[in-house]
């Protein structure tokens, strides 16, 4: 399956990108297993804690991903 991962603020800056497109991801991938893989590939993800949204809703590690999902890595918010 294919997924999009959106990055914001300090994470986007560190990544040098606002979006990662992931192709041919295993069907049995969960939010938690994908994050483990991304953290292994991109050590800068340890720099700041973040929540994960899946299709605009905060996700749990155990949530199974589906083709076309839009994930977003959300550092602690600081609007206002």
């Amino acid at each position, binding site marked *: 399956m294919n997924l999009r991962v*959106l990055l*914001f*603020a*300090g994470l*986007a*800056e*560190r990544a040098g990108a606002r979006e990662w497109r992931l192709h041919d991801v295993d069907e049995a991938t969960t939010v938690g297993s994908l994050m483990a893989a991304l953290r292994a590939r991109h050590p800068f993800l340890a*720099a*700041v804690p973040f929540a994960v*949204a899946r299709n*605009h809703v905060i996700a749990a590690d155990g949530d199974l991903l589906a083709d076309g999902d839009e994930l*977003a890595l*959300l*550092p*602690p*918010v*600081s*609007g*206002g």
Partner: protein
Amino acid sequence: MRPSASESPRRLTRGPIDVAALVREVATVDHGGVCTFVGTARRTSDGKEVDLLRYDGYAAMAEKAIEEIVSEAMAKHPGSRVTAVHRLGTCPLGEASVAVVAAAPHRDAAFAACRFAIDAIKSRAPIWKQEVFKDGTAWVGDPGSFQAAARRGGSDEP
């Protein structure tokens, strides 16, 4: 029929916020109190001089979050009408980065609805503030994100 405040399509803007327009959007003759909160870009942050602020946001989710917060504020205070807008992109000093307007039959509910909405926006909307200093930039709440300003060509170069 006048549309309800919650039908307003846009909760985010990349330009100045028109607070008077927000007041007109929610205040009616049934409201005896209108409470407005305007968050503005301040000159200093922890004693350091700020040149301007920049806001990043997950627009689709932030629109939904602010819409939900506005609906919750009105549900908590029957008879109230609430609206809110947050700015994204560059916000010069002194200009509004966020505005909430709550109109209610009496002032207690107007203050309470306004307070609830601004607190919820600050804690729940996926929006991030970057402070731009003379010597670099930093995302608020992400201390490791400081990036030194690129040196300007010319004056100090040999």
